[in-house]
């Protein structure tokens, strides 16, 4: 078994520059976000964890301890099935309906779908996709881990803030991330998205026409190299994930799509600070409680 759920108490930034300690099983007092997976039954392999984007589906064994924890907390009336998120700080989250959640009286909103912290991810989900790559000699590469439903999705504003958005809610990171934003700005001229996955890797969307003039050669070279590398090593899944990303973000025209560019690991920026959105409007919890998948 390659991954486990660990019983860590985590510090979660909340309003007024405070952190709150949250134990596994307790309601999660911050935006519901992160890489999206589901716990489902597979006829062939029993209970599995699933990554999915439209017709692309991959199943692996769930992290040890996860199903038991979901069941004991009342997820999906005790079946433990349903969707989870994993944040950039490896916090595993789910939403449990207040009707069956054992700690609903502790939640900021006591009805509907309550976000719950389950524990932290230790190790790697066993997907045959490299979501935790290592490129010691590279400054830039094509991101070819999961390219959908993967990572916390942040917006970079033109005044160098990371903003987490959902519906009309806009929550700022508790920290400054000037190194990270500088790196982002090297490859994209205007405000846009960046994604941070559960292993701390950061990738950005790069529309071809928005690469700053001085960097186009570099991006072109990296993209060519990556394609040669992927072809040579028969990295079909990686190529398919990138191809699909280009097509979808280009509205069907891949040449107009956004190339997912890997810009580095959080440890390389801002002393390794992990961006953490702070809920500045409690209404968010009410809105997010209306749907199981909502709030991210």
């Amino acid at each position, binding site marked *: 078994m390659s991954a486990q759920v660990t019983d860590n108490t985590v510090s979660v930034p909340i309003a007024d520059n405070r952190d709150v300690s949250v134990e596994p099983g307790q309601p999660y007092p911050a935006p519901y976000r992160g890489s999206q997976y589901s716990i489902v039954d597979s006829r062939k392999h029993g209970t599995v964890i699933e990554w999915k984007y439209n*017709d692309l589906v991959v199943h692996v064994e769930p992290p040890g301890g996860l199903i038991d924890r979901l069941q004991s907390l009342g997820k999906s009336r005790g079946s433990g099935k349903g969707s989870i998120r994993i944040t950039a700080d490896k916090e595993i989250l789910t939403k449990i309906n207040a009707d069956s959640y054992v700690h609903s009286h502790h939640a900021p909103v006591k009805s509907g779908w309550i976000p719950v912290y389950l524990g932290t991810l230790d190790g790697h989900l066993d997907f045959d996709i490299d979501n935790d790559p290592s490129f010691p000699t590279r400054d830039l590469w094509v991101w070819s881990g999961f390219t959908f439903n993967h990572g916390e999705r942040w917006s970079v504003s033109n005044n160098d803030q990371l903003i987490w958005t959902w519906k009309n809610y806009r929550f700022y990171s508790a920290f400054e991330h000037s190194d990270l934003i500088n790196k982002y700005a090297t490859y994209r001229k205007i405000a846009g998205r960046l994604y941070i996955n559960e292993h701390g890797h950061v990738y950005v969307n790069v529309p071809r026409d928005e690469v700053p003039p001085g960097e186009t050669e570099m991006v072109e070279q990296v993209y060519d190299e990556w394609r040669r590398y992927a072809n040579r090593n028969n990295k079909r899944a990686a190529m398919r994930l990138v191809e699909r990303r280009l097509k*979808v973000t280009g509205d069907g025209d891949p040449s107009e799509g956004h190339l997912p560019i890997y810009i580095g690991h959080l440890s390389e920026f801002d002393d390794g600070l992990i961006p953490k959105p702070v809920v500045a409007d409690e209404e968010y919890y009410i809105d997010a409680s209306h749907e199981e998948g909502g709030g991210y």
Partner: protein
Amino acid sequence: MKQDGISVGDPWPHHYRGLSLQVSPNREVWWQLYQGTDRLRLNPAPEKIVDHLLDHKRIGGRFHVTEQGDALTRVENGEEYDQIYLGKVDNLDGELVPDGAEEYSIDLQPDGLEAGDLWPSIYDGSRYSFVGDRFWWHSGQSHKRHPVPTGLPIDIEQNLQRYKRDGGSFRILPWGDVITLVPIHPTPEKVQNQFNKLPRVVRNIIKLRKDRDVEMLPVYIGSLGDYQIEVKDPPSLTDSLSAEEEESLNSWAQNLGRTTARSTDTHKVSTDTDSGGSQKDKSTSETERASKKNNSEQKDTKPPELNDDPVDWIMEDMGDVGEQNPNQHDST
């Protein structure tokens, strides 16, 4: 009684789908409103299929009839289910008789309908889905989409696109009629009038309620005739790339040098790193402008979730989200 060389009692090697019917121990055949208690007896019952089903399930049970008239059932085998071929239903027809209200019987196979007319019978059949001109069958077991590369006849495609602009699921009955559910109809008075003319017991059965506010009505789309739907295996992430996919990857790099000078933007982002929150309002609007410009960037992480079929709603009511209940036989 063979299909592709398959004999009655053989394993069914194709995708499992179809109109769902229930055989009771006394040989009656019923259609039931999903998890509800309302049920309709099919008269006459397809006797041969009932015989074959009772050979495998002595106390009766559920079977399905595909859009080509093949009758199938699933038989428990340890923790697994075997899919068994029960034979061809030559002409599945007759009346659906409400339990205890025989005077309100309806035709299983209504006729004389035009595209867009209310479908005055049960909403059931083989379930397929589409968006634009892409069609697929969704497997409840593997959770995967199995593409229908050759699509459907052009008139069916056009009518589906007309009545269901955003795509979604539809059903095909054993005799080839295609039906779908619509929340909003281009000519609502027409279907509403057709609906109001039906007896109440029938209205209660075919009126399908999605949410508190949304009622969906089944409409007739057309007939497949002899057209056979061909379903392919779902793509796998690790399949070889098609020529089209290869070309997609190439196309991004072509013309990469084509950029126009927008130097102010460039400098704003890359040189002004310490401006803090002083430009908050301005930058907010710029962020939003950027987001709008790149609306595909927002769309990318939210693929359309198709949830327009009663089976999906029932699973939600049960606290599941569809994908969690692959053993739900009705989802075929």
